[in-house]
């Protein structure tokens, strides 16, 4: 009780420096938790985000490019697959399902992807979860109809029955006159429920729609950009990997998707490390501010400390009180850091969803919620030892009344 009284009153006496120091610690704590959560959650989410597929088959390229293009709808397609290749793949007894994807157009920045209706009717994009049509219906093959992902529909403001003309290319140029619009008119016939996958950002049309779009090369009208593959036995991927990647030289078989994404995160691991290092440096600087704040107030505290000693307070009580004060400032900072953390993570999650359609859950508990505040408090306690030793050594007699 006495210790808490000493800490509480000291914090109150130095309220301004307490607030400023706690705020700097809250920023450090918030940043540390956000960087850690983001890198952990992003890695977990992207590695699991395979859309329910085991592999992607595409033109000869890097596996990563194929996965980013076909699963995340981010990269450009490396080339096309001929219909014969698609038929061969589909006929393989190890393959359970194949869904073709054709890309090359967009509508106001949202990628238009041609596919087949079984992508929405038969396929499970996650365990026991199929795409659900929120409004309208799935497009019909052979018609200029579109089914919108939930996010795309929301951002484009399109409703059932609305019409639009696709733009050529995967991206929409910032200067409208630089964009080439196709003459074909598509009508929105359905809107998907949010799946929290990259599919939410896509405008889906029949695969023949992309293949036959005016301006596309008629010579490749039967080709597709990639094929999503579901295997009967995931282990069969090894044989297909041998077949396409080792023995063949025209196509690339990206399998397993999670491993391909893990390789991406391994490649950008240095960036994670830099971010983490920056966050730790901020935490160390914030802890140093605790040291500076308390140390600078030691002159003003000398008399109070001497009075406490004259009342019988042991040196170790004074020492502990200073450490406890530093730790309490860090605890306040860490508590406020959660607000900073949630705000930053919410912003980052929104950005990730806008850019990729992948949903990162800001309020998902993690160990970082325990160890980051604890580490911050530990750092502050360590920083507090410097002023604590100074307090420990206060000369009582000279700090009290002048000699008479």
């Amino acid at each position, binding site marked *: 009780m006495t210790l808490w009284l000493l800490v509480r009153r000291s914090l109150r006496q130095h309220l301004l420096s307490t607030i400023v120091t706690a705020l700097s610690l809250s920023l450090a704590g918030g940043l540390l938790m956000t960087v850690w959560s983001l890198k952990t959650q992003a890695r977990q989410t992207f590695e699991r985000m395979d859309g329910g597929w085991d592999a992607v088959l595409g033109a000869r390229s890097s596996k990563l490019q194929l996965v980013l293009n076909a699963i995340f709808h981010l990269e450009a397609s490396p080339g096309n697959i001929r219909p014969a290749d698609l038929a061969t793949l589909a006929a393989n007894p190890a393959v359970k399902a194949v869904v073709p994807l054709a890309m090359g157009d967009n509508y106001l920045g949202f990628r238009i992807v041609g596919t087949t209706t079984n992508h929405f009717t038969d396929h499970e994009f996650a365990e026991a979860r199929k795409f659900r049509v929120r409004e309208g219906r799935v497009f019909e093959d052979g018609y200029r109809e579109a089914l919108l992902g939930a996010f795309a529909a929301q951002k484009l403001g399109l409703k059932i029955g609305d019409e639009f003309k696709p733009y050529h290319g995967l991206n929409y140029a910032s200067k409208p006159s630089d964009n080439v619009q196709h003459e074909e008119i598509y009508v929105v016939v359905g809107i998907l429920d949010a799946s929290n996958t990259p599919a939410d950002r896509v405008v889906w049309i029949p695969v023949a729609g992309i293949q036959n779009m005016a301006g596309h090369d008629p010579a490749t009208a039967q080709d597709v950009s990639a094929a999503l593959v579901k295997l009967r036995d995931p282990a069969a991927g090894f044989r297909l990997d041998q077949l396409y990647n080792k023995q063949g030289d025209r196509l690339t078989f990206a399998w397993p998707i999670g491993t391909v994404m893990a390789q991406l995160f391994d490649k950008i691991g240095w960036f994670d490390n830099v971010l983490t290092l920056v966050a730790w440096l901020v935490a160390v600087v914030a802890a140093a501010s605790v040291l500076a704040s308390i140390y600078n107030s030691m002159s003003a505290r000398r008399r109070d400390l001497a009075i406490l000693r004259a009342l*019988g307070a042991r040196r170790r009580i004074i020492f502990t009180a200073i450490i406890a004060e530093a730790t309490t400032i860090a605890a306040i900072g860490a508590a406020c850091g959660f607000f900073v953390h949630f705000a930053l993570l919410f912003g980052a999650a929104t950005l990730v969803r806008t850019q990729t359609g992948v949903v990162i859950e800001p309020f998902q508990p993690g160990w970082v919620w325990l160890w980051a505040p604890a580490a911050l408090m530990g750092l502050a306690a360590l920083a507090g030892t410097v002023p604590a030793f100074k307090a420990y050594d206060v000369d009582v007699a000279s700090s009290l009344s002048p000699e008479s």
Partner: protein
Amino acid sequence: MSLLEIRALRKGFRSPDGHLLPVVDIPEFSLAAGQAVALAGPSGTGKTTFLNLIAGILTPDSGSIRIDGQEIVGMTEHGRDRLRANAIGYIFQSFNLLQGFTCLENVVLGMSFGAGANPARATDLLRRVGLGDRLHHFPRQLSTGQQQRVAVARAMAGKPRLVLADEPTGNLDPANAREALALIRETCTENGSALLLVSHDRDILGAFDNVPSLADINRAARPQPARA
């Protein structure tokens, strides 16, 4: 047996030119349990140094100080802290109240390091000294006389066996000074505490039967003969 026994106590401070200036040189001094003694001494006669030595705040150059039979010279700092917390109440000339703490908290801290915090007793003490309606005021919100009463309540909070009072009325007007002294003596009597008061205020010293001069017991406070 005496509560306080002092033998051959010496303490000096180095002057800037390196000479040792003796401040306390007391061959013998004692105080019985429950006894109240006042020492007269003008400023600069080593009053505060003397009391700080007894309280264990300063360590002597040589000699012996026994409180309740316990030798404090050579005692560890921790031991002296404990002794101060458990057996000594100290009333300072400038009160030395903790400005960031309320009256009640100041008094509670007076007992926290020894007998243990007892807010109920602290409240009673403050009521006794007429500050029952000022419990949660800070020292700066009190008059000088009221602050001195808080200092008295704090010194008495742990029911110390020995109360040291260093010019306890030095900052008070005569009326407040008399009131403060009466309060100190009354509470010491109630607690059975011995009182050692040092002051140069003749009015205050007049309230005691026998008032030796500090110079009588402290050879270092006597005027030095002029050098030939």
